[in-house]
């Protein structure tokens, strides 16, 4: 358990040590001093030492505890210190497990108010427990405009929400991909949405090329169209003025014409040919 030192005053250090040994007290150490001997015994034998010395010409005094027993005795006289230490030991893990501060970092830190409101809706605020369903909160934050990255971490009582925004994550346009002019579909690229025309199909101007739905079995779910298409269209127009002016106007209207034919009809020029027009929604 621990030991203690007792200074035994008297003449004859050897006799003192012998008395204790014969009395059944194991002596751990003994140091001869001027007026007596300093003996070290187990704490449990302390009372026995005084009992042996009682009634003799030896006087035991100045007990000094050593090791753990010394520390324990000191602590016994300081209940306030023990209480404070206990409170501290209990408080630290408790408060570390709570949210003491919410920090929003990253280029999306301007969403702080919205994020704090979102967390409060989920029951997370100062001194509350950290959010249990972090994936859901992350998904909601990712739905914010321009947000491309989001992560939640809780360490040392601080709930850190890192939000990064990117211009590439700009909001996508809604609606369907519409054919700008009547023509034959030459190419169709659909990343999201449902194609309502195929390559080789003739579509009228304003016709739906890609619809903003996603077919899921018998139901259709809303979707954002990400698609592009090119159509082969026929140009057929008449222009007044000189031949050059008519060609220039046709170029302005249709771009370069393939297989162009130009004919004078009365006071106007009749120009025909084929051109390619491109339509895209949220792609390129």
């Amino acid at each position, binding site marked *: 358990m621990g030991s203690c030192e007792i200074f035994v005053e008297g003449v004859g*250090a*050897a006799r003192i*040590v*012998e008395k204790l*040994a014969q009395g059944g007290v*194991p002596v751990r*150490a003994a*140091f*001869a001093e001027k007026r007596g*001997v300093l003996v070290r015994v187990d704490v449990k034998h302390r009372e026995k030492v005084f009992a042996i010395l009682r009634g003799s010409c030896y006087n035991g005094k100045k007990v000094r505890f050593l090791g753990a027993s010394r520390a324990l005795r000191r602590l016994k006289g300081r209940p306030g210190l023990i209480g404070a230490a206990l409170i501290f030991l209990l408080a630290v893990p408790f408060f570390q497990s709570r949210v003491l501060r919410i920090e929003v970092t990253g280029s999306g830190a301007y969403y702080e108010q919205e994020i704090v409101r979102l967390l409060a809706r989920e029951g997370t605020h100062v001194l509350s427990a950290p959010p249990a369903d972090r994936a859901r909160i992350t998904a909601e934050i990712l739905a914010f405009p321009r947000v491309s990255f989001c992560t939640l971490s809780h360490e040392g009582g601080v709930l850190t929400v890192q939000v990064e925004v990117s211009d590439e994550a700009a909001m996508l346009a809604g609606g369907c991909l519409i054919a700008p002019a009547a023509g034959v579909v030459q190419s169709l690229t659909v990343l999201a949405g449902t194609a309502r025309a195929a390559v080789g199909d003739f579509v009228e101007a304003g016709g739906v090329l890609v619809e903003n739905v996603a077919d899921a079995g018998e139901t259709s779910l809303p979707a954002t169209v990400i698609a592009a298409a090119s159509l082969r269209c026929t140009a057929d127009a008449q222009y007044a003025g000189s031949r050059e002016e008519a060609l220039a106007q046709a170029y302005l209207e249709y771009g370069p014409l393939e297989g162009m034919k130009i004919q004078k009809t009365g006071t106007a020029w009749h120009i025909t040919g084929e051109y390619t027009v491109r339509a895209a929604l949220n792609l390129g």
Partner: protein
Amino acid sequence: MEFLHEIAKRLGADAFRIHYTVVDGRGAYFENVVRILYFSAGEIVLRGRGGSVRVTGEALSLGRYFAGDLEVRGDVRCVAREGGDGKL
């Protein structure tokens, strides 16, 4: 005492003399110590069944002492036997 007599008869009286081991500069260990006759920082006299032993040195102190076993700490310079073989 009968038991001790029997042991002494078989092993000889030397079985109960003080046996010791000295570790240079550290101390010494003694067995079969009956009494400590004298103890000071420079000299320790021990009595066993078959005579006495005088230990001299510097800064001597006692370590564990119980049931005939004794540890002496300090710089043991000399260990000398004194007295002849005694009767049990």
